[in-house]
């Protein structure tokens, strides 16, 4: 049974007319203007099997983040089916689900709860998470005093220690310092060795090659190529060079 399965998934967004006021709705009802929706994803199909790690590459606005949001269950697709089997931890944006005025420890508990961890399990894992994050004595300080690297380390530590089946990461790994990057790489490698899966969005070819054996290249919402990470990266980079006219 695949962990994640996308079947002819399409997702579109209405072209927004600024603030959604009552006026906007009324003029739309009476007006003749029909905006074409903007397709963020168009007929995307792929499967992520147990133990497989998939990188998603593509230029800005290609639909990578939308794809992760659909996998995380934040929004249903407009067409097609998304099936997910297993518990997902999503690291989509730096510090989402964190409250700046709460302490690091309180945010840790809150974040674990958002990932679906029970209070007791969180207490068991608490020390390990704090130790992994390397935040140390600052854990009892409010989050607004943290640097962005510290926030990312805390978020990553909670996500990796709460042992999800699938980890979704949206290019935030670059924030930590060198030692934490090494540590998180090692954690991700052992995460993969434990047979867990990774769905990974990145602009860095180095980390894609390191983390994933498979890659999916999407462009303007459509799948351009799905296959071996090296081959997909080569094609993707070749295309980018062609576009630059080199």
């Amino acid at each position, binding site marked *: 049974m695949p962990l994640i399965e996308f079947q002819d998934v399409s997702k579109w967004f209405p072209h927004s007319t600024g*603030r959604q*006021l009552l006026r906007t*709705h009324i003029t739309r009802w009476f007006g003749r203007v029909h905006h074409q929706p903007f397709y963020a994803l168009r007929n995307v199909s792929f499967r992520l099997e147990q133990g497989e790690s998939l990188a998603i590459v593509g230029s800005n606005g290609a639909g990578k983040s939308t794809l992760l949001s659909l996998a995380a269950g*934040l*929004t249903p697709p407009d067409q097609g089916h998304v099936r997910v089997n297993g518990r*997902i931890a999503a690291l989509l*944006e730096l510090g989402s689900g964190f409250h700046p005025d709460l302490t690091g420890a309180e945010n840790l508990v809150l974040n674990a709860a958002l990932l679906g961890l029970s209070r007791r399990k969180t207490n068991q894992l608490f020390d390990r998470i704090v130790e992994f994050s390397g935040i140390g004595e600052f854990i009892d300080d409010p989050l607004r005093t943290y640097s962005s690297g510290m926030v990312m380390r805390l978020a990553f530590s909670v996500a990796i220690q709460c042992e999800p089946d699938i980890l979704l990461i949206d290019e935030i790994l670059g924030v930590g310092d060198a030692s934490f990057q090494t540590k998180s790489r090692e954690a991700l490698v052992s995460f993969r060795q434990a047979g867990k899966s990774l769905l990974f969005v990145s602009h860095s070819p180095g980390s894609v090659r390191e983390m994933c054996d498979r890659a999916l290249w999407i462009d303007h919402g459509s799948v351009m190529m799905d296959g071996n990470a090296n081959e997909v990266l080569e094609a993707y980079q070749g295309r980018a060079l062609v576009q630059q006219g080199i």
Partner: protein
Amino acid sequence: MMAVLTFIFTKIFARASDTNFPLFVLCGLVPLNFFTLAWVTGTTSVLDNAPLIKRVPVPRQVFPIASVISNCLHLLIQIALLLGIVLVFGRGVNIHWLWLPLIWGLEILFVMGLAFAFSAVNVYVRDTRYVVESTNTVLFWLVPVFYSFALIPARFRGLYEINPVAALVLMMRNVLLENHAPLDSTLIRLAIVSVGMFGAGLFIFGKLKDGFYTRL
């Protein structure tokens, strides 16, 4: 706020003929304040938490529920103060106080229903919150805070009886000032309206919540 109100209605508005007037007004103001605040914060709850909704897969119903419950904390303090003032005014505890949790529970259910419905609609039509705010201003006069039910002409009384906030004010006064249990008919009407509103709110929220992500 409570202190200021008590001061105004005991020292400034105090009428020799009616020593209970401050209590009478507070029995109206506490429910009305709770209702207006919970409705407004409930309405904006989904929009205020847009970053969470776009990035964290939690059940969306959490947001209106949380905002109403956080208002309940203030409410508990206000009710405790109100009961304290009742005692200060020399009115003892009576057995009918046991009705209070039930009628407040129904009221909270009603506000939650409203919060579900309006928070969802507010995502699609962003000026919903201004409609709610204006309605609350009107409500201040439509709920018998400064006047009693006895003053309402019989032909308008039907209008008041379907208003759950007015029903709550009436029952608060029944219990705290008149020492008798709320009328069955009022209670049943409030129960039906509250449960109905809660169900309708949940239904509307469920219908609209799939569009939150693209609209926020």
